């Protein structure tokens, strides 16, 4: 069971790191996608969405190729860091980021797109720079989208399986995440451990989600005096 706890730890760590990094990377992408009139935008949009459509194992397979020192990206990384990306935590983070990118970008983009332009204009005439408008207007007004993006990104990384299966190498304490450990139990016919673990994961996830949604619901729409929600 200690190995299982280790897997849980790795999983949560992976999900956290991935989500935090994605929350840094995604807003500019989402903003650009939501508001650019550039003609390459549609292509960029489709590219971001691609990991959604590709089966994760296939994505993992191509990542495995990309990470290989035989090919350019992997060789470059090896030159810089002296280490291999495959079967390392860093590799998992990169894989997860690509895999979960659309889950963070798309809710943000959707939030940004429906955000009225009125308050932004008001901010600009007050002298707010682009960054200030983002900080003082966009973020608070699309708080829900940010929370949704973070939840989707985190949850999706938690449940990630195919990519990790391909590029993780199932090394306990390093790359063995909970979905893999669980799968291993099922495949090894250790059903009881599998049930315990799945149950635990379910409870953990429920608690986490209850916490997030509880917070979201509490902080929302205090001033709405209306029958039309």
């Amino acid at each position, binding site marked *: 069971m200690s190995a299982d706890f280790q897997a849980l730890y790795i999983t949560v760590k992976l999900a956290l790191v991935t989500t935090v990094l994605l929350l840094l990377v995604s807003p500019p992408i989402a903003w650009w996608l939501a508001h650019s009139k550039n003609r390459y935008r549609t292509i960029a949009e489709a590219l971001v969405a691609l990991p959604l459509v590709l089966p994760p194992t296939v994505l993992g397979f191509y990542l495995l190729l990309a990470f290989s020192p035989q090919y350019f990206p992997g060789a470059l990384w090896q030159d810089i860091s002296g280490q291999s990306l495959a079967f390392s935590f860093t590799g998992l983070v990169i894989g997860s980021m690509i895999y979960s990118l659309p889950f963070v970008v798309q809710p943000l983009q959707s939030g940004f797109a429906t955000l009225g332009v*009125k*308050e932004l*204009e*008001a*901010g*600009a*005439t*007050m*002298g*707010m*720079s*682009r960054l*200030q*408008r983002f900080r*003082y*207007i966009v973020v*608070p*007004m699309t708080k829900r989208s940010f929370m949704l993006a973070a939840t989707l990104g985190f949850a999706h990384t938690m449940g990630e399986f195919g990519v990790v299966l391909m590029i993780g190498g199932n090394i306990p304490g390093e790359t063995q995440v909970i979905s893999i450990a669980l799968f291993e139990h099922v495949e090894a016919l250790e059903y009881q451990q599998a049930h315990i673990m799945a149950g635990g994961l379910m409870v953990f996830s429920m608690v986490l989600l209850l916490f997030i949604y509880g917070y979201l619901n509490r902080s929302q729409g*205090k*001033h709405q*005096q209306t029958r039309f929600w």
Partner: protein
Amino acid sequence: MQLTVHLDQYFGQFRIELQLCIKLRGIIGVFGTSGAGKTSLFRAIAGLNQSAPNQLSLIKLDGNTLEDSQKKVFVEAEHRNIGFVFQDSRLFNHLTVEQNLSLAIKISQRKEPLISYQDVVQGCGIEPLLTQSAEGLSAGQRQRVAIARALLGSPKLLLLDEPLAALDHDSRQHLVAFLNQVSELIPMLFISHSVSETLTLCDPLILLEGGRIKAIGSREQLAETLPKRRASAVVTEFDPETGKLCLDTIPDLLPEFKPGQRIGIVAEPSWLKSRELTRDD
């Protein structure tokens, strides 16, 4: 301080085409019927319009070129230092009134706003609202807060788009006085539909119609041009023998008649079928 505006632009089907060069001092009135292009003009001055190709724009303020479509100059709205009170107030609903105001001060990056916080809050009559969430405010309260917010940003020029429309008579008088006083520090362009408001507050006046400037000049010059031409009236006395006609009028829908002035009379005008006129026939 001088403002030069030269525009030839389309908003949808609507064309705005005007040339304007005016000395900024006190409150300058902008007057015109609904859809005349007043808001569009303000948006152009503030730098809120997407400049499309083939559209001409040249805007200079205080010697600085803010926009020049030919030289491809476009100073972004946030660097123009031109305040804007929007027709639809546009407060930040996720903040309290106080937070809306302090954000404006913070953004302006001045240690002290041009007009002190206390003065603005008192002048706009919003002391009792400070701790309220902007979302719960009534329309008139929102407008006053929007004016306060714009003033606390200490802009070089303030554009006011019907800032008093949703206010009651008293608040309006109070604010008219306050704006008048403040305009000595911050010059303003002021859109209003109220003839009296315009005449009380503004000098000179700009008259817009169909996206063009119809007239521009001092209050005295333009007072007669203002669309205070028609009014309803109820006949109280009529002597067919002497031709003496006495009318009962409501003062503020009334033109300013001078003794000796010739006026026209229309028996059943199409533009006015109010009960007052039709009731007794």
